[in-house]
């Protein structure tokens, strides 16, 4: 049984390494350099982010976190209510950016899940 589980997770990990991870990186950088004009300034400002946070995420590579905030807002606006309150940015996000953001978030969730499973298997290896 456990051998079968290892086999499945092993195949998923190969899928992650060869396909999901490169696509995630590609989409992350695509999103980073193609954030719709004006959206960054609209979202990344006080009071949504503190002055400290803004200073921190203004330079690469930390600016990727700002990209993640924009991408998550584009893909699933309702999940960012704690930060943005009732502000609705969906009208300002073009459809193609919403699509790539949604795929990115989906792949990150699946990829993260695979990594967690692989880590669990890595721990189980010690006992099997």
């Amino acid at each position, binding site marked *: 049984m456990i051998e079968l589980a*290892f086999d499945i997770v092993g195949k998923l990990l190969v899928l*992650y390494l060869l396909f999901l991870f490169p696509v995630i990186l590609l989409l992350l950088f695509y999103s980073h350099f193609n954030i719709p004009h004006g959206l960054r300034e609209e979202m990344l400002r006080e009071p949504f982010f503190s002055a*400290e946070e803004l200073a921190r995420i203004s330079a690469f590579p930390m600016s990727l976190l700002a990209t993640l905030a924009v*991408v998550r807002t584009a893909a699933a606006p309702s999940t960012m209510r704690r*930060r943005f309150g009732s502000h609705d940015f969906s009208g300002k996000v073009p459809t193609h950016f919403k699509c790539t953001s949604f795929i990115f978030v989906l792949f*990150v969730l699946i990829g993260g899940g695979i990594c967690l499973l692989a*880590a669990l298997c890595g721990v189980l290896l010690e006992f099997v």
Partner: protein
Amino acid sequence: MEKFKSTPLFCTADGYEILYAVKRGDTLTGIVREQYNLFGSAAAPVVQRILENNQEIKSADLIYSGQLLVLRFPWDAPEIRTAEQDELRQTKKHWNGLDKPLQETMADLAYIDTISGILHAGGGGATGAGLLIQSNLKPMKDIVGKYEDYRAGKITRSVYGHYRSDQIKQLQKRIGRPAESLLFKGKKANEALRMKPGGGPNATRPYLGQVNRLQKIAGKASKGGFVLAAAGLGLSCYEIAHTDSVVEKDKIAVEAIAGTAAGLGVGILVGLFLVSNPIGWGTAIIIAAGTAAVGYAAGNFAGHVYHENHSDVRIVEPLMIDRVCR
């Protein structure tokens, strides 16, 4: 009885060795007292043995916080000579070659372990922790503003006291007791974050000192994260260069690549979760440690999968990794 404070890295029937990160205020005799429960004249031969095992220490008085030492248990056990032992010494060499402030910060952020696998993934974790500490400094700085308002007579003492107490309680809630103890050197936040009694022109100095210290830790952790990641990959490079078997070389490469990719993947996942709300330190440190562990464990599993199912696939040679790692 010896006090056991760290995970033993390599064991034989004769004993085991650990890597010990020197803390602020440590001396060799203090370390011997703490780790071996020996003091006075009984400590002298142990100190001598530590100096022999750590030849980069020029004098017993010259150790610095963040430096790594190899400690052997029992102290008079014969030397352990294995391939892993070489790796341990290389790990130590890489670590001790980093900037001193970075080593010190990494030793402060005690969740970073010192074996090579953890170094790969720990880099991302440290970077994240730095960012998160940074983002929580504003409420602490706001207390200074309120204190100045109180001194200027704009608000009453009880309003200031209530505000300070409220902010510190929130902070304690977010970071949790273990992180509070780590960041404030064993003290509680409300004990560490105090203005100078009696007021005066420099009343805010001790308080701001604490805030500045945390700010420095945050900056160094972010920077140190990248250094650690690079050091981890460098170690794999070293292992590849010093392994004869082609399959073993490929396995090491798979572990390093998969561990780094898994660490990054989980790091992005964690980043996606974190950006939605203000971030607490305790959560951050726990998540950072978790991310590091996930990268390490996933890398191990990837090595196993490669060894069991794909050992006919060549990686190091076609990618010319061995030409880089000499």
